[in-house]
């Protein structure tokens, strides 16, 4: 039966060996810790499911959960849609200087988080003379205190995520488009297809594996958003913008409550599994009924 048994197993073994050492052990440790109370230095005390109760009863936990979803949808979903258009434009033979544009679109992804933090801190300053606030005032709106307002914080963090990761997703779609056989584009052109219909009937269906890939990774990424709120909100990690990983980070590394932090991690893990499965089922439907063109 399994003709390629040994090569196949051999080829995948490095990942699992490395993961066993550097991934699995730490993971098991945090699952174990979820049932203990531990401050990182003193003894561990077994507390059963007490940590889970404490977290589930905490209003901030639920708040961070809803923040994560809102920021995930606002920061990630537009990336996936706009990324396809950008990749299409960057891939189009109609465009000159494609290389210049590619570099430009990709630059945010290259920039380190230190620079991003400073730049967004200045853009979304709470002060009335901050750049975004100046624009708001110019348009006749009131200035917003971005780090302390419900939507201000979420919008600023979402934009930061969008700005930083759009280049990454565009790059993946671009690579995907390179794998679409040229004949398909030509066939579409012969049929007199507009850009829109070319996108809809040729590009998107052919990109499906790549769309699944990005949806999968973006969903996990969105549920694990951490660095952006941390650098934008600073130490305070206020409730307007705290995400679930930031919540567990604060518990573990600022307050040294490793037990509840681990319990949060366990629950997040389960949540990611459930959401990813649902997501994969839904994404599988993309382009299913639309596929008309292409070679017969």
């Amino acid at each position, binding site marked *: 039966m399994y003709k390629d048994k040994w090569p196949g197993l051999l080829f995948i*073994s*490095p990942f699992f*060996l*490395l993961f066993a*050492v550097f991934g699995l052990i730490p993971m098991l440790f945090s699952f174990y810790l979820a049932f203990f*109370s531990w*401050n*990182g*230095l*003193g003894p561990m005390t077994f507390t059963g499911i007490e*940590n889970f109760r*404490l977290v589930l*009863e*905490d209003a*901030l936990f639920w708040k961070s959960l809803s923040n994560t979803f809102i920021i995930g949808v606002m920061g990630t979903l537009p990336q996936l849609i706009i990324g396809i258009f950008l990749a299409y434009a960057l891939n189009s033979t109609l465009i000159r200087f494609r290389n210049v544009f590619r570099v430009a679109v990709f630059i945010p992804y290259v920039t380190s988080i230190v620079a991003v933090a*400073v730049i967004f*801190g*200045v853009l979304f*300053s*709470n*002060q009335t003379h901050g750049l975004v606030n100046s624009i708001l005032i110019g348009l006749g709106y009131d200035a917003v*205190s971005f*780090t*302390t*307002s419900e939507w201000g914080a979420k919008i600023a963090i979402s934009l930061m995520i969008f700005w930083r990761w759009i280049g990454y997703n565009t790059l993946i779609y671009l690579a995907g488009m390179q794998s679409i056989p040229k004949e398909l584009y030509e066939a579409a052109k012969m049929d007199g297809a507009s850009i829109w219909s070319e996108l809809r009937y040729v590009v998107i269906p052919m990109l499906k594996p790549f769309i699944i890939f990005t949806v999968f990774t973006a969903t996990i990424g969105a549920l694990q958003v951490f660095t952006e709120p941390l650098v934008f909100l*600073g*130490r*305070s990690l*206020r409730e307007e913008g705290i995400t679930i990983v930031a919540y567990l980070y604060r*518990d573990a*590394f*600022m*307050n*040294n*409550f490793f*037990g*509840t932090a681990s319990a949060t991690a366990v629950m997040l893990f389960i949540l990611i599994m459930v959401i990813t499965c649902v997501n994969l089922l839904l994404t599988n439907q993309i382009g299913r009924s639309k596929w008309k063109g292409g070679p017969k």
Partner: protein
Amino acid sequence: MAKKAFGLALASTLLLAACGGGGTEDASGDDRVELTFWLFGTTKYEELAEVYMEENPGVKINIQEGDNTDHHNNLFTALSTGSGAPDLALVEINEIERYRDAQDRFINLYDYGAEELKGHYLDWVWETAENRDGDFLFGLPTDIGPTAMFYRTDVFEEAGLPTDPEEVSATIQTWDDYTEMANTIYEKTGTIVTDSPELVYNALRDQAKEHYFNENEELIVENNAAIREAYDRTVELIENGVVGSLELWTPEWGGAMDTGDYATLLGPAWMIAVIQGNAPNAAGNWSIADMPEGAGNWGGSFVTIPAETDHPEEAYDFVKWLLSPENQLQSFVDAGLFPSAPAVYEEEAFINHTDEYFNGLNTAAVFGKAAQQVESVYKGRNYMLVQEEILTALDNVNSNGADPDAEWDAAMKRINDRLQRG
């Protein structure tokens, strides 16, 4: 044994491990005792270490500097796993609280004769470095941070207030005076009195004898009238519209220091370097007067010796030398670290120290006076947790116009909830 098998399994699968040699192992083969010393902030201890190495050829001091937060996080990780800690580590005064229950991770300096040094340092600082029973000493004190009121002479002048430090100290003696001054400045010039709620609240808080926890680690903040009063006073200033919303350590905060967007900065001695660094164009516009109703302490550190060290004797000898009164004077001259050894306060070079940036003010005298007013306060392991929640409440009042009483109650509830996790 297990470790070996583990390593072997890895080595056989890792194709690239061999390329990764960072070459950091000490292959030099010299038989000097090497002491690794972790530092943060600007201490100029590297210069003193050079001197020490010249005097003691058998010792090599390897200094590693990091950002304040990173430094303490890395130290915590190393101490938590029991490996990777240095021979010497600087620990900030508030950070030392989380190690109180973990004294097995440090060398007890009393075992090396630190008792004899006790008289050299301010009592309250020394006590902070001891455990609750007073028989364990975590570290020797470096500097302290007695607080005072930095103020903008140009803003004061515009508002028709005195600008001479002595006159200012005499005029603004109480918090009522401070509030009145704030209102006057706001009316006459439109300038706010302080950057954010945090520093005013901290200054008020530091005048309380007890803060958030008592020495039995019981939460007392809810019934501590002094803390509630500090909160209410800060709220009063907020409601008068004289408190800004500049978060500490941000570029905006530094910039506003330069342009004079706020009239006073309530801070410790080491803030001198911060102001000079952030506001190079405002030389002559900043001066220093006494803190209304008495000074508190903010900051300062201890040099500790983590228990993992192989050379506790040598490490102790170096610390003892580094933090001796003579060298504390040197650190004061080099880096503005305010000495924790009172003997220094008598020294010529200290007494006559003036600062051109502050119009030739004798800064040593101002902070020397403040240092005498400071008393030891028990902070407790979860001090920062309580502090953060109270500041969140104040920020909500300041930025979002929330109801102060409701915010206080909500903060107390959050504090109680979170403390259940430890």
